[in-house]
């Protein structure tokens, strides 16, 4: 079993062959699905815990504080302690709520983000399903998350929850357009919707560099719109704590609240992953044409670390947004989308089509 950190394809194939040789094919498939599922669950939990810690530290540094510093060195075990606390907390039943929908909502939110993560390429051979409509699939399943938010707001039987859910609905439905159109701009450049092909097309230069102005505009629009889609500040109207206590998840406690919390951070991770894959070359190392020595040095770093590094930079950008800009009002939010982002985006798409047709890109 050859383990090559630069290309895990052969490693995966040897596991696949081992299972199919020793088990009937139906059970081999079940075992494979279970392995992948458990791997993703572990990844999900680790990333969730890490991102919560990172957010608190970044927020603290931006506000000139120290942040968590008691549990473990630099407070790195703080989120684990918090998580144990959340697990042990009482789950408060709401008597006048719609019990079925109230309990269902956190699962819809978390399943939507879990489905999206399956199609993301983490490295060569680290790609659970490579659908030929990859990017469209990610968009389709991540649009399901808003249903969980809407259900949670309505079934809580609380006016703050309801207002939060309605704001979040209006916000996500309108910003989804911008996210989709900025993705389409890059699909025009790549000529494919398959995520592995999009990454492969960036072998000799990331799209943010080769795509000239339209790719850069698309990246900025994608960052704005996807920050809004994940309900993060400055677009966190759905849970604006100063006006709506906690918005749609006011009535949730214990592990159900933890689900919403975790799903928010995972959505941020997924959005950053898509930004990395579409604009920053996915797991491709940084190559500069002609600089042979430099390119070889860059190749030493394994693809997975390239991928995680770029994703974390994008996540840092999003955290920076959150703690720098003040929250928008709902009318400002809708005006920004419908009057500015959408027309710019449509124009940008035509510009990109022109660039591709005239072969102005590198």
């Amino acid at each position, binding site marked *: 079993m050859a383990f090559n950190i630069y290309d895990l394809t052969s490693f995966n194939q040897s596991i696949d062959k081992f299972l199919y040789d020793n088990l009937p094919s139906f059970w081999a498939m079940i075992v494979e699905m279970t392995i992948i599922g458990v791997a993703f669950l572990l990844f999900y939990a680790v990333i969730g815990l890490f991102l919560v810690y990172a957010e608190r530290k970044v927020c603290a540094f931006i506000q000139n504080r120290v942040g968590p510093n008691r549990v473990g060195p630099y407070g790195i075990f703080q989120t684990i302690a918090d998580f144990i606390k959340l697990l042990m907390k009482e789950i408060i039943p709401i008597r006048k709520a719609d019990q079925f929908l109230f309990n269902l909502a956190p699962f819809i939110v978390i399943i939507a983000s879990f489905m999206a993560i399956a199609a993301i390429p983490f490295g060569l051979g680290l790609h659970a399903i490579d659908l030929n409509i990859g990017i469209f699939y990610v968009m*389709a399943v991540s649009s399901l998350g808003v249903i969980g938010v*809407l259900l949670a707001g*309505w079934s809580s039987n609380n006016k703050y929850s309801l207002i939060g859910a309605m704001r979040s609905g209006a916000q996500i439905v309108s910003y989804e357009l911008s996210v989709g159109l900025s993705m389409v701009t890059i699909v025009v450049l790549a000529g494919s919707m398959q995520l592995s092909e999009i990454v492969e097309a960036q072998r000799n230069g990331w799209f943010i560099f080769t795509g000239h102005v339209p790719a850069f505009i698309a990246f900025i629009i994608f960052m704005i719109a996807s920050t809004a889609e994940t309900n993060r500040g400055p677009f966190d109207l759905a849970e604006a704590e100063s006006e709506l206590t906690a918005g749609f998840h006011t009535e949730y406690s214990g592990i159900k609240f933890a689900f919403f919390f975790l799903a928010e951070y995972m959505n941020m991770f997924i959005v950053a992953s898509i930004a990395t894959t579409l604009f920053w070359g996915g797991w491709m190392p940084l190559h500069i044409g002609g600089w042979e020595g430099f390119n070889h040095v860059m190749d030493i770093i394994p693809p997975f670390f390239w991928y995680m590094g770029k994703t974390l930079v994008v996540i840092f950008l999003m955290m920076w947004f959150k703690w720098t800009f003040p929250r928008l009002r709902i009318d400002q939010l809708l005006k920004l989308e419908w009057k500015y982002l959408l027309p710019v985006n449509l124009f940008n798409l035509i510009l990109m089509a022109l660039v591709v047709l005239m072969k102005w890109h590198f």
Partner: protein
Amino acid sequence: MTGNQIMFIVFSAMIVIFSILTVTSRRILRAATFLLFVLISTSGLYFMLNFQFLAAVQLTLYAGGIVVLIIFSILLTSHIDEKFESAALLKKVYGAIASILGAVLVINTLINYTFVPSTEAAKDINMNLIGNSLISWGEQGYALPFELISILLLAAMIAAIVVAKKIKTN
């Protein structure tokens, strides 16, 4: 039984059960949620058949678009305590008869129709093929329906704006 068959049975059982729950539930938002499950299971069937494009369209348009709009309008108009009144017995009987007749008709047609298995190799349905046939006017082109639908959509959008627009009285 192969894995494919088990998956088919699971998906179709979900479709049937949730369809029945959608029309029998007396709370409107629950009905909308069950409808969502029906649509998601249908897209699961498409994924099973490897027709990924249609599956993703089903998810974005129906589950992510239409159901969200339905839920949104329920949020704006109805309260959590509201329940539908149980339908009158006569209406229930008529409804049952109509649905049984419909089911008999469909199942009868399906059983009597002889499906000829195609020997043609499965086509690789990729986005390039779909995109090209949408805007071509040749043998397998859909340019005319595509443009007609876009005119219809434009008309609907303008109509929505006209309806929603406030008329200044003074």
